[in-house]
């Protein structure tokens, strides 16, 4: 879905996130003796989400990819308002919800509008709730219905998610992985959310079931007009479902753009490494050396604790980082319609192919 001009393919953002920050204090708190000695230092801060800005339009699917520890989950918890933010704003339909305390958000009229499908359907379902009770629970809490209407609604939701009505009386341990995934989805869409956040919804499923669940999600989105934020590290899956993607690295968005464009023409070295790491489904590609050699990144990520505001977060692991990357942190800049990257040397792998000054300027 590449737009020919600068107009995004979707208008009227449903979710508008601006300069979102979340920092966690870490390390030992200054004790009494430290204070008497005057050696108390401000606590170290772990920058989990750092200056994240993006929008999701109505009916759009945004993919969020990145490795574990990159801040995906913290970002999701901020957006679902399970966690208070440090700075920035989250607007839903133009209304600021970022400043509402997470503690009371469960009773807010916005709660039904943002719902979530969790990664592990087994762990996220209450083992003592039947499938029907699990689906009915959010309705009873957020949009109460009389008994008969509730039963009809649960049956309707189960049918929408392809869960046979005779399974509604079963407990999670009596359901298969695919059936539990369907319960998890039915429960999340029960209160008719505008934004559904999907955290690796098919990670625990076999390929044979994964396809069905992905097709169900695609179908539900079209029928109900929801927007999705699809969190995954399986890029083959992200590519199937998403209109746009964001690549996150150590709390920051390093590349974002239309999914097809990012997959076809990745600009950030980290995105290139991610794409290079997915199995390409061509037998023997690794062995006989056909095609481009795989790009591998070595080492471990930099520490997210008190990171230097000047150094690129990917510096040290980056195959083409140099002095410029230690002197100024690259910010997101446009490289194509709707396609932005935070790198001094985007694009081609050969550093000499790019003039750094041109890119910085």
């Amino acid at each position, binding site marked *: 879905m590449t737009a020919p001009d600068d107009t995004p393919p979707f208008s009227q953002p449903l979710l508008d996130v601006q300069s979102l920050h979340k920092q966690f204090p870490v390390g030992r708190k200054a004790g009494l003796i430290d204070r008497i000695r005057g050696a108390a230092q401000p606590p170290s801060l772990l920058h989990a989400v750092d200056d994240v800005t993006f929008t999701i339009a109505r009916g759009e699917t945004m993919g969020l990819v990145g490795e574990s520890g990159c801040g995906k989950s913290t970002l999701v918890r901020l957006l679902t308002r399970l966690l208070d933010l440090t700075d920035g704003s989250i607007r839903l339909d133009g209304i600021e919800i970022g400043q509402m305390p997470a503690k009371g958000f469960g009773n807010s009229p916005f709660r039904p509008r943002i719902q979530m499908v969790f990664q592990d359907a087994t762990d996220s379902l209450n083992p003592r709730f039947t499938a029907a009770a699990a689906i009915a629970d959010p309705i009873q809490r957020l949009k109460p219905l009389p008994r008969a209407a509730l039963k009809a609604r649960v049956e309707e939701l189960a049918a929408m998610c392809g869960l046979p009505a005779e399974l509604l009386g079963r407990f999670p341990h009596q359901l298969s992985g695919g059936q539990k995934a369907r319960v998890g989805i039915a429960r999340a869409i029960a209160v008719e959310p505008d934004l559904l956040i999907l955290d690796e919804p098919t990670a625990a499923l076999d390929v*044979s079931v994964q*396809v069905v669940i992905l097709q169900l999600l695609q179908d539900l989105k079209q029928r109900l007009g929801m927007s999705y934020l699809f969190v995954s590290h*399986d890029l083959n899956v992200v590519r*199937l479902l998403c209109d746009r993607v964001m690549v996150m690295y150590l709390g920051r968005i390093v590349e974002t753009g239309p999914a097809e464009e990012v997959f076809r023409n990745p600009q950030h070295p980290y995105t290139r490494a*991610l794409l290079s*790491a997915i199995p*390409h489904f061509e*037998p023997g590609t690794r062995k006989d050396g056909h095609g481009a050699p*795989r790009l591998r990144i070595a080492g471990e990520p930099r520490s997210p604790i008190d990171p230097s505001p000047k150094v690129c977060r990917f510096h040290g692991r980056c195959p083409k980082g140099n002095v410029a990357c230690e002197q100024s942190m690259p910010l997101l800049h446009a490289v194509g319609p709707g396609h932005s990257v935070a790198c001094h040397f985007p694009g081609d792998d050969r550093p000499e192919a790019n003039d750094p000054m041109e890119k910085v300027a």
Partner: protein
Amino acid sequence: MTAAPVLSVDNLSVEFRTRAGIVRALEHVGFDIGRGEMVAIVGESGSGKSVTAYTVMGILDPAGRVSGGTATFGGLDLLTAPEAALRDIRGREMSMIFQNPRVALNPIRRVGDQIADVLLQHGGVTRAEAPKRAVEMLARVRIPDPERRARAYPFELSGGMCQRIMIAIALSCAPRLLIADEPTTGLDVTTQAAIMDLIAELGSAQGMATLLITHDLGMAAEYCDRIVVMHAGHIVEAAPTAELFRHPRHPYTAKLIAATPRPTASLAELAAIPGGLPDLRQAEIPPCRYIARCERRLARCDQALPRVLGDGPDSVVACWNPL
């Protein structure tokens, strides 16, 4: 395959006694792995991939019983060998990497000591040398700063690091056979690729045979010489990787390939596999366990399962009506 295979599994059947009756988890499973070869067993959960690996390693659950067949490794039948002989082989000549490294490692011992344990037990290393050799092993699996990391506990290391430690333990005695049971499940794609590269590299450097248990056809395609496809305790097809993808013969293999997300297919082009695995607790299971899900079944499909030779000399298909 020219030389004698490192591992030769033949006609292996395993059953589990459960309260609901006997489950025939594996029936007539057979495959060979040669020196330096990497072979994948792929299939859905419940297809018997891990049971096969556990049986070969001799660490089958007590409820399981080998009801027939052989698993020959270096002239020894692993299934009838005394426990003492097995203990001598395991860890030294064949070792295994498990799915969840954090659970498989001892949480209250430093990782360097855990590698040293194996070297002391099997590697013929003196107590004085062992710690140094452990650090060398950490360096070989590309752990940065190995001296410091040798003193770390598993909880201090990332998932990818823990899996490298597992690999270091498994490879410390230069085994002839490595069994890797879903070694990268739950790891990031970049880490996943690095771990698989490492296994493949160390494997080919030592001429080690590797059995990769995975549900990820893409990964099997990329790293393995041959692929064995399992369904409900049966091998339905086995073939060299390129051949299997170019011309899948068993209907299940074709469905599995069609269901796997890959860079060239759209969501609508991917097709689910209808139905599920049959209930293996029933007394009467049809000879072909795929029959209920199969679109190509014929009248004679309820007869005993055939073993049809595939396109090449190394390939077999268990189907009356192959593609």
